[in-house]
Structure formats: C-alpha cells, structure tokens
C-alpha cells in the first residue's frame, strides 16, 4: 500500500530488487569477511561505571525495580529538568554504538558528555534499584533489537517494571477528526499484557503504531512478560520546548513514591535544555 502515512518503511520500496538478493546468495569469502566486520562495527556495547563493577564483582545481573527509558529531546529534557535535577542521581553506565548517523558515540572508554548525543544510564542514590536511561542518539533499525537484548541482559527480570517516554510529532498521529493546534501536546499510552496498573492517559488508538526504540523495548517486555508501559507524547513543535516536557508529568505518577518530581524547575535549566533551537532558527530574526 502506498499510504505514506505512518507505515514503517525505511527504504524507497519495501520490495528489494530480485537481483540484489541474488548477490547475497553468491557471497564469497571476502564478502563474508566484510559483512562480519561491518556487523562487528555496528555492535552495541553496554558499559558500567567502576562503582557498579566493584559492588558487583561476580558480574551478576543488577537488581532493578523500576527502569525509566526516555527517547527523544523532550522526553530526556523532561527527566533532566524535573527528575535528575531534584534528587540525587549518579551516572552508572552508558551504551555505545556506531552507525551512519551517530558516529561520535563510539568511544567505549568514555561516557558521552552532557551535551553529546548518546545513551546514559543513571541510578538513584537512596534507592539504587530505580534507574533512568536517557537516549538522545540515533539508533539504526538493525541495532534496536540488540540494544534491548543487551541492556535487559544486565538487569534482573524479577520485580522489574519499565516505563518508556517517547517523543513524536502530531503529523504522525492519525485520527478521524483534525487534531492540529488545539489539543497538542498530548499523551497516548501502550502497555504490555503484564502491566496491570491504571494508566493516567488514553491508550493509543488504532490505526496508530509506534516504531523505533520504544517499540523494541515494548516487544521485548511483552515476550519476557515484564510489565511495561509506553507514553508517547505527540507535539506540534519540532524543537524541544518546556510545554511538551511538562506533558510527561502524569506519566511518572505511578512512580511518585520513588521518583520525586521537581514541581517547578528553574527557568535557567529549562532554557539550557531548549536552547538548541536558537542557533538554527535565527534565520528570520
């Protein structure tokens, strides 16, 4: 179907030319070698800080009761401003990967700097079983499955509950009535079968779908029967902004005992998080 609306399509056509596939059939030793090297280069690695490794010498899976994964500038900005800033959190790990669009993050020896795109994992100091993962780098389609497998392999499955916050644009939201303007930004949720808690917003209606890292995490949790919920925020602003960030507030209501939200983060912090748009949008000012 040439719908062009919301279909998961990464290439010009979903039908690969027959001849392209014949080439793969006739792969020789050198091709296989190149293929292996490319695969190796694209591998996803999870790194833990010295403290975590020292406290866990036998390399067992880490105990984690709640994991919050934020994908996109607004979701990560929300966590930075409202959560990470208020309580005492420390950086405990990061995920490194290489692909065509995130070349800079492949430095396995060093965590990404605060302003660099990357995937960073934080842990609460008082309650180390609560973790946050902020993902701001591009993860290629072939790396999504591996990303979830590797990150979740480090965590104990028992007692784990996952919350995913993810950004999206209103243009990708399908509804029989015209939705632009008035209602946005708004939240929609998707949950795995194991998730039984009440959800503070409407569920994502058919025929809307979600792709990318949130989809990979939710699929993994569904298969492993881990309770997980995704909050997708549809916004009509293309740059990170404070109104969209605030929309995520109800998403963490079920974690209110463990994760304290800063009721009103300082303007300075919000300004820092949204300043990215300034440099690019000064063309007409």
């Amino acid at each position, binding site marked *: *179907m*040439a*719908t062009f*609306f919301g279909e*998961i*399509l*990464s*290439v010009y*056509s*979903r*039908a*690969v*030319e*027959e001849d392209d*596939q014949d080439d*793969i*059939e006739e792969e020789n030793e050198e091709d296989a070698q190149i*293929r292996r090297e490319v695969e190796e280069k694209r591998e996803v690695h999870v790194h833990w800080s010295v403290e975590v490794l020292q406290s866990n010498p036998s390399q067992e899976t880490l105990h984690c009761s709640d994991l919050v994964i934020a994908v996109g500038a607004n979701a990560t900005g929300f966590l930075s401003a409202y959560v990470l800033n208020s309580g005492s959190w420390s950086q405990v790990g990061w995920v490194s990967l290489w692909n065509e669009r995130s070349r800079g993050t492949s430095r396995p020896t060093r965590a990404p700097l605060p302003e660099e795109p990357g995937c960073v994992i934080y842990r609460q100091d008082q309650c180390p079983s609560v973790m946050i993962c902020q993902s701001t780098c591009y993860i290629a*389609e*072939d790396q*999504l*499955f*591996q990303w979830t*497998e590797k990150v979740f392999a480090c965590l104990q499955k028992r007692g784990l509950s996952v919350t995913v916050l993810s950004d999206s644009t209103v243009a990708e*939201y*399908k*509804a*029989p*009535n*015209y*939705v*632009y303007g008035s209602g946005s930004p708004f939240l929609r949720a*998707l*949950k*795995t*079968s194991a998730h039984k808690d009440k959800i503070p917003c409407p*569920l*994502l*209606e*058919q*025929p*809307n*779908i*979600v*792709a*990318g890292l*949130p*989809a*990979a995490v*939710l*699929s993994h949790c*569904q*298969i492993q029967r881990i309770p997980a919920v*995704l909050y997708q925020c549809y916004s009509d602003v293309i740059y990170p902004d404070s109104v969209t960030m605030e929309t995520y507030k109800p998403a963490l209501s079920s974690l209110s005992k463990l994760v304290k939200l800063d009721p009103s983060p300082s303007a300075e912090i919000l300004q820092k998080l949204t300043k990215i748009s300034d440099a690019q949008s000064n063309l007409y000012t």
Partner: protein
Amino acid sequence: MFIATEDTPPSFKGYTLIMPAVSVGNVGQLAADLIISTLNMPRVGHFHTDCLIPMVGNNPYATSSEDAAELSTNAEVYALNDIKLAVLQIRAPIIQTRVRSFRKLIVAWIKTSGFSRTVVLSSSHAYQRDDRQLLGTSLRYLLTPALQKEAEESVKELDWRELERVSAFPGIAESEQRLYIPGGGITKGLYTDCCSENIAMAVLLTFCSEGDNVPDAFALVSYLNDWHRLVEKQTGGSAQWRVPPSWSLLFGSGIPPAIF
C-alpha cells in the same frame, strides 16, 4: 523464534500455515489481515526475531473497547484449532542484511512445528510482466515438488495458471528459463529453500502496482478461498470478508476544516 502467549505452547502438527511475503503493495499482508479478522482467530504467540524492524500497536482486530488494549508486535501467530489453521502475520519489513537468516528461521520453524502445508501469499510488480502474462487473470500459483502430487488435481480443477518461467535473456531462443518474481521480497528465496528442504508449500501471488491495494488483497484472498474454503461463499458467489478496524484512515487523518 516462536514464543507462545500461553504457558503451554500450541501444537501445529497437521496444521496449514498461511503467511504473507512482504512484497509490492503489501497484498499478502492485507490478505492475511482479512483471514484473521474474518475467522476471528485468537493470537497464540509472537514471532520474536532480530530480522524484522521493531513495531508495536494496539490490537488491530479489536471488535470492542475491551479487547482493544492488547499489545501487538511486528510478527504474530494466530490459530484456529477446529479447522487446523495457523496464520503468521508480518507487519514490518525485513532488515535488508538479515533476509537470508529470516528465511532460514521460517524454514526451520515450519519443519519443527510439523505444518502439513504452507501457503505463501505474495505479489509481484505488474509492470514487469512479459507478453504471455499480460493477457487474462493476474493471479498465479507455484507448488513445491513435495506438494505437487497432492495438490495437482485440485489446481487443475480450478483451472489455475502456474507462474510462467521467463527467459534470462529475452529474445535469445535457447536462453535459460528461470523463476522471476520482481518485487516479491523473500518469495523466490523461500520457495527455492522449501523445494530443496522438501517442504510442502504453495505460493499464491498476484501482479499489482503500488497504490490502493485493498482490491488486490480481496482478489488474492478469494483466490485462496477457492482452494482452501476458509469462508463459505454467499449466494452471490463471493465470500463475505470482514475488514479489520486497523484499515481505517489508510490515506491519512481528517481534513483540516480551514482549507475550505
């Protein structure tokens, strides 16, 4: 890898498996949607693999608000015990570098599950037909040697047309005749794999172009129904298929009122 929804995995011994090939116009996938939706097939498991692009949504076949909140993933298996039918629905493209491993995975699963036969619903670019293919029906079939004997009779009765082999170098008299399914995705590879693995498989395909492929899906599913009798035909001669709610808004959201 197949992962059952229930604790006791279902047995597919003697079942017929219907699966789409992700191909031009998504015709196979749309046809599989029609079968699952019309027969109201319950989901029995997920097909969890790194070969497909991840994707999630709510229940695409919801009939009421109660069953709408059910997470569905990029590949799922639906089954009906009383007619021994299983449908594998694929909702995302295959990652280009893993096409081969995906085919291997499917072949291995068909073998270990003990399906008695497999039907692949597929499509091929209409613009690449040759002169013989331009005339008459646009529906074709292929049978693997393992299914040939069993199905030959019924196919003859139905007066179906087998997919023509085309010459590798058109215009040269003695050039090699080969199987050619442009735009068919894994169809050809899967078919040749099943031939060499001695798996009973049929490929049903239609020639089509990208666009609104809903009519193509109806044509292909009726073609399958002529052979497999999944849905009883009405007095008018055609079966009643139920369109799933996930087919709504195929061409976008509501129109902004301000444009008028």
